């Protein structure tokens, strides 16, 4: 892949302070990081150092914060551990989660582009190759495939109001969905596609990151911690994304 460039080496400090400018810059540096042991060690030490800077400005939080957090805890589902062995599974599948659709996993196929706007993956062969080339972890790729091939996988493809389609493959037993898109309009400068999970009562909205378009396609993107009744949506937002959606989703699909 990309040659080791000294300009990437010197970004360790900037990266550790979350001071890179764009998600693309972060992605590029993380690809470098995956192959640069020296950088990894340095970033780790810098994070510890930054933590010390953070600890130094500790302040007693407002008393109301504690109650607010503790109220939410029982309602907030924890993510499954990544090495999710069967015995460690947290919840039983919820049968009412979504109607089952047959042959879901197959339809999405292996033709989808594997991630981060770098490489299009069309065959199983390239898939394993991509594992080394991209900063997608092996576990993440495995999780994506596990969702697609899960026995309770369901698939919904929907046309969006701005063109193109979005496909969501859901697995209730894994609390995960995999999202791919086709034919979304190219982005104007300064705009990004942002993904959201919206709670059933609408009062909990969580950003699930930005989409990277490559040759008019994206994904697959893995989203974890999906709750019963969640709606998945995509909005067009200013570069860098926002904390809460500023416009209505141009596509919304039950997750």
């Amino acid at each position, binding site marked *: 892949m990309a040659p080791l460039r000294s300009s990437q080496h*010197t970004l360790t400090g900037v990266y550790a302070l979350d001071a890179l*400018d764009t998600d693309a810059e972060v992605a590029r540096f993380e690809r470098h990081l995956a192959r640069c042991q020296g950088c990894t060690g340095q970033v780790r030490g810098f994070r*510890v*150092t930054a933590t010390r800077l953070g600890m130094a400005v*500790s*302040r007693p939080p407002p008393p109301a*914060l504690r109650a607010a957090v503790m109220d939410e805890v029982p309602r*907030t589902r924890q993510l499954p551990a990544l090495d999710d062995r069967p015995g460690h599974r947290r919840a039983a599948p919820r049968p009412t989660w979504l109607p089952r659709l047959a042959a879901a996993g197959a339809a999405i196929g292996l033709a989808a582009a594997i991630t981060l706007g770098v490489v299009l993956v069309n065959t199983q062969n390239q898939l394993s190759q991509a594992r080394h080339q991209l900063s997608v972890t092996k576990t993440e790729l495995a999780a994506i495939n596990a969702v697609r091939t899960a026995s309770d996988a369901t698939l919904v493809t929907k046309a969006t109001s701005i063109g193109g389609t979005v496909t969501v493959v859901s697995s209730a037993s894994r609390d995960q969905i995999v999202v791919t898109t086709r034919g979304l309009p190219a982005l104007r400068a300064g705009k990004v596609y942002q993904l959201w999970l919206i709670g059933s009562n609408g009062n909990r909205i969580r950003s699930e990151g930005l989409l990277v378009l490559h040759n008019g396609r994206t994904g697959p993107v893995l989203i974890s911690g999906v709750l019963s009744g969640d709606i998945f949506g995509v909005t067009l937002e200013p570069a860098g994304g*926002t904390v809460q959606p500023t416009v209505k989703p141009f596509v919304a699909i039950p997750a």
Partner: protein
Amino acid sequence: MRASEPEMPRPEGGGDRYLDGLLARVARGDQAAFEAVYDGLAGPVYGLILRVVRDPAQSEEVSQEVLLEIWRTAPRFDPAKGSAATWAMTIAHRRAVDRVRSAAAAAAREQRTAEVPVPHDAVADVVEASLEAERVRRCLDGLTESQRESITLAYYGGFSYRQVGERLGIALSTIKTRIRDGLIRMRDCLGVS
């Protein structure tokens, strides 16, 4: 706190392994353990977010999100990659930076850029003059002025390195190395292994 102590400062009576152990229990859904984690981390998390975001109401909101994210993602915490405190503070800093760089905050941010603190004050005006703050301040004093400015603007100010460069009138490539060299010096001064 002795100079030889490794890594993280601790909230009262805590310590790295203590928090790591608690987090392992949180990962199994233990709410009592989470309350103890809250007691250890809420102050540092809130203080850091307040430093970056500056608005108390928004800081409280972001702190709540971060503390719930700690609960939610505890099963994904890997102690082999670093301490629980570093993990939590990394999340807190990212969320704070997300907040100040979001579109909604952009306008407000433009207004407040005029009043961004002289970087050195970032630590100096801490209410609690804790030993840790003293130590961090001493180490910041050991940096060159431009290293100190670059690091405090980026970390406490939440500015991207491009913005830091613009504010200080320094080329991007120089900012990169200033931040890195400054962090190396800070790391060594604080005795981070």
